[in-house]
C-alpha cells in the first residue's frame, strides 16, 4: 500500500480563500500524484458530501472527504491557510484543511488507517504541531508517527 501522505500532497501556504477553490487545489495535487483518476468526479463527490453538511469543525479545521470511484489509494491531502477559509463551522474559519480521499470499495485495512487518522484530528497537540510544522516533510513525519506509529 502506498503512503497515506507524501510531501507533494502538502501545501503549507494555501492561496485559495474559498472552500471549493481550496479543495480543488489540494485535489489537483492528489491527481498529479496519481491518487485520483478523474478530478471532476472526485470533486463532485466531495461537494456532495459537503452539501449534506459542511465538514468544518470548531477549532479551525475543515475535513472535506468522500468515498469515490475516482480514488486509487486512501490518501490525505493537507493544506494550511494563514488567513483561514470559511468551512461552515460556527466558531470561525478553518486554518488546517484535511482532504481525505477513500477508494469506493476500500477494504477494512484501508478504512482502518483513515479511521485512526480521523481519531488524531481531535487532539489539540496534533493540531498545534501541524500549525507549527516548518516544511512538508515535517508534516509527513508527524502524520506517520501519530497515525501509523512509524
Amino acid at each position, binding site marked *: 500500500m502506498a503512503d497515506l501522505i507524501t510531501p507533494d500532497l502538502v501545501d503549507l501556504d494555501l492561496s485559495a480563500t474559498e472552500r471549493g477553490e481550496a479543495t480543488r487545489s489540494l485535489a489537483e495535487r492528489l491527481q498529479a500524484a496519481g491518487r485520483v483518476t478523474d478530478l471532476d*468526479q472526485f470533486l*463532485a463527490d466531495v*461537494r*456532495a*458530501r459537503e*452539501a*449534506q*453538511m*459542511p*465538514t468544518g*469543525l*470548531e*477549532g479551525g479545521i475543515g*475535513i472535506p*472527504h*468522500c*468515498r469515490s470511484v475516482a480514488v486509487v489509494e486512501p490518501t490525505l491531502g493537507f493544506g494550511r491557510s494563514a488567513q483561514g477559509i470559511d468551512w*461552515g463551522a*460556527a466558531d470561525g474559519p478553518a486554518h488546517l484543511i484535511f482532504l*481525505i480521499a*477513500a477508494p469506493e470499495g*476500500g477494504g*477494512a485495512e484501508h*478504512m*482502518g488507517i*483513515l*479511521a*485512526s487518522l*480521523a*481519531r*488524531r*484530528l*481531535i*487532539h*489539540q497537540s496534533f493540531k498545534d504541531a501541524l500549525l507549527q510544522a516548518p516544511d512538508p516533510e515535517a508534516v509527513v513525519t508527524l502524520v506517520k508517527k501519530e497515525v501509523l506509529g512509524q
Partner: protein
Amino acid sequence: MKIVAVTSCPTGIAHTYMAAEALEQAARNAGHEIKVETQGAAGAEAVPDADIAAADAVVFAADVEVRNRERFAGKPLVQTSVKRAINDAPNLIAEAEAAASAAPVAATATPAAGGGDAGRPVPPTPTGGGGGGGGAAAFGNQLRGWLMTGVSYMIPFVAAGGILIALGFLFGGGAVKPKVYGGTFEGVTYQAITDFTQVVQKAGWAGLLFLIGATAFSMLVPILAGFIAYAMADRPGLVPGIVAGLLANLVGAGFLGGLVGGLLAGAIALYLVRLKVPRAFAGIMPVVFIPLVATLLVGFLMVVVIGKPIAAAQTGLTNWLNGLSGSNAVLLGLLLGLMMGFDLGGPVNKVAYTFGLAALASGNTQVMAAVMAAGMVPPLGLALATVLRKHLFSDAERKAGEAAWLLGASFITEGAIPFAAADPIRVVPATMAGGGVAGALSMAFKCGSRAPHGGIWVIGLIEKPLLWFLAIVIGLAVSAALVIVLKSLGHRASDEELEAEMGDASLPGRRTATA
C-alpha cells in the same frame, strides 16, 4: 458511571471516528467508563450486549440511522448529531450523567423480580416525546433519511426487474406481455398463462425473462414501504411495512400509497415499541404482539381508509376523461401526460393508461401514442439529469439513473420511482411537466401507436415515429431541466436548514471551554 455510545455519519470515514475519540476522551476525563461502537466504513465492532446491559446511559452521536438500535431499548439515551459530539463532547457526557440519574431504576437494568415498573426510560428514538431540539428542519431531515433508506433497498429491484422486462420486450417484441399475462395485441387475443412452469413453451425464453422481471418488479412498493418502516422503527416495522406495500399494490395505490403506508406502519410500530407493558409480556412484544397489531392496523388503514377513496377517485377521473374525449386533442394529450407523470405507475397513471388502452381498442391509435410517449419521459428525463448534474443526486440515485435509460426507453415509467420516492416534492412536478409536454406534442403531431406497451421495442408499430421521438426528446429535456432547477433551489435551502439546525443544536448555552 458506565456509558455506551454509537457514532455514525454519512460517509463513515471521518466524523464517526472523530466523535468516538472525542467521547472517549471526555468520558475518561470525567472519570467514566465508555465503550463506543463506530458504525463506519472500517466495519462496526458491536458493543457486547453485556456492556449494554451494564451501561447507565447511552449516547447516540449519529447523522444516519443507528443500526440495530433495538439493542439499546429502554436505556437512558442522549441523542445528538455527530458534529456536536466532536465539538462539545464534555457537555454531552454531562447530559448522559443527567439522563442516567433521571432514570435510576431503568439504569441498573437488573432483572428485578416482579418489579414491573422499570422507571421511565427514555424512548430509544430521536422522535421521542421530549420535544425541544431542531423542530421542523430536524423532522424534515429525518423524514428524508427514512425515505432514502426505503429507496436504497428498492433500487436493486427496480434495476433488476426493469432490465429483465426490457430484455423480454427486446427479444420477444410487444406481444411478450399478453403472451404471459393475457390480453390483446395487434388484434390477437392471448390467454394468460395459469401454470407458470409452462412459460417457456407458451411464451418463449423472452416470456420467461418478462415473467422474472415482472415478479421482481412486483416487490418494488412492498420493499419501499417495508424499509421506510424499518428505518423508523427498526425490525418491528418491517412486517407491517411490507404488508402495507403489498396492500398498496392490491388496492392500486402505487408508490405514493406505499410511501404513505410505510410511514404509517413505521409510526404505528414505533408507538407500540414505546408502550410500557408489564415485564411478563415484554418478551412477546417484538415477535408476536407488535407485528400482529401494527400489521392489522396499517392493513385496515390501507384497504378501508386509503383504498376506497382511491378507487372512487379513479372512477371519477375516468368519467371526466371520457367526457373530454370530443374536445381539443392537444389538451387531452397534455392532461394524459400530466397524469402519466404524476404517480408513475400509481392510480392516476393507471387511469390515463387504461384510457389509452380503451381508445386503442376502439381504433384510436393517437391517444395510446401520447400516453406511451408521456410514460417514457420521466425515467429518461431523470437519467439525463443525473448525467448533467451529478452532484444533485446521491450515489444510489446516480446508479438508478444508469438503469433508467433502458427502463424509460422500454416505457417502464416505474424507473423514475426511486427519484420520486426520495424527493417527491421536487421530482414529481418535473416528471409531470415533461410527460405533459410529450403527450401534448405527440397529439399535436398526430402520432399513433398500435402497441399498448413496449416503448422503442415496438417502434415498428408507431405511426410518424420521428415526430414521436421528437415529442419524447423535448419532453425529457423539459423534465431534466425542471428537476435540475428545483433540486438546485432545494439544495441551497436544505443546506441553510442544516446549518440553522446546527446553530440551534449549539444554542442551549452552557458551553465551557472544550478540551
